[in-house]
């Protein structure tokens, strides 16, 4: 069962166990607001998802940037700022923002010379060819790469000491009071188990 943002129940095609609020090891209900996690965490350390955009409808999707590409773009822009004393999560400061602003100007300029689907201007207005259904793009092409840097880098991509997910924020267990099927308990246990393992990893790295 799902609920929309107004909290009303909605029937859906799939059976969807919605996790309850997380329960601390002490058995108390955590009064935490559901929020998006800061850091992706997977037990499969060696397995890294590879993303390859095959087709994009530019009426809706104009850009697609992987984490690696964001890092490369940011590293090109920040450059010497990364060697300064402040690092880690503190990179999300004016230094990074100014660097990203510079990069946005840089890539905006570059995009004028790098438009894979640019066609001659008509009536003084530049157009972009719409990809046909037969077109395949085997390489991830961010059509608006400069816009990918307008926002701050996600926490999971920042170097240095990360704000580890000790607060279980990445679990995002929300507070909707909906009756759940039994297998949700298994789901919750697995999620909590992952978090506890991550905390032990964090503690071990600090010793």
């Amino acid at each position, binding site marked *: 069962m799902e609920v929309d*943002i107004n909290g009303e129940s909605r029937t859906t095609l799939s059976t969807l166990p919605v996790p309850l609020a997380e329960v601390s090891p002490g058995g108390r209900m955590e009064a935490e607001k559901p929020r998006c996690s800061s850091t992706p965490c997977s037990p499969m*350390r060696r397995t890294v998802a*590879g993303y390859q955009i095959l087709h994009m409808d530019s*009426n809706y999707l104009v850009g697609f940037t*992987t984490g690696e590409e964001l890092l490369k773009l940011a590293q090109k822009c920040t450059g010497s700022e990364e060697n300064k004393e402040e690092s880690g999560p503190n990179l999300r400061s004016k230094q990074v923002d100014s660097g990203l602003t510079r990069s946005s100007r840089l890539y905006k300029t570059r995009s004028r010379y790098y438009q894979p689907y640019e066609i001659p201007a008509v009536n003084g207005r530049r157009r972009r060819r719409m990809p046909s259904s037969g077109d395949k793009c085997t390489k991830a092409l961010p059509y608006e790469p400069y816009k990918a840097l307008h926002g701050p880098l996600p926490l999971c991509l920042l170097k240095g000491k990360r704000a580890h997910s000790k607060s279980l924020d990445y679990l995002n267990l929300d507070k909707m009071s909906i009756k759940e099927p039994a297998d949700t308990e298994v789901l919750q246990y697995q999620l909590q188990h992952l978090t506890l393992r991550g905390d032990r990893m964090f503690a071990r790295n600090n010793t």
Partner: protein
Amino acid sequence: MFCVLEQDLGQAWFGSLRVSFHPEQDEEDEDDNSELDASAGRFVRYQFTPAFLRLRTVGATVEFTVGEKPVSNFRMIERHYFRDRLLKNFDFDFGFCIPSSRNTCEHIYEFPQLSEDLIRLMVENPYETRSDSFYFVDNKLIMHNKADYAYNGGQ
């Protein structure tokens, strides 16, 4: 890999995406550097146009490969947030996947109804809409991917 637009129904296939991962259990790698690299590989940033938020149903084709071991009860739960507000929770059940296979799956997202104010906020605040995708095999979490979204594309 195609794009079909049905304006009257508010549906659209916005694109096709090949995601390469092996939904199997793996040993932990305690190398801290690999943790950062793995995080980078599990993050994607999307830039949509504002028109995207007017859609009611969106389809996305995802292709994934399975390693040498069969995968049973493969499932993905995806949660979308705007700032600290849960927009919607999606649940996709892949079921059983045979080993050494390449699979194509079409995710159909039914968007929640968004108020005009919320749409405006989402457009004006790029990358403050985020999502978590949790992948499970036999109810055990095997992978967690993240994404964030901008809806001011083309502006």
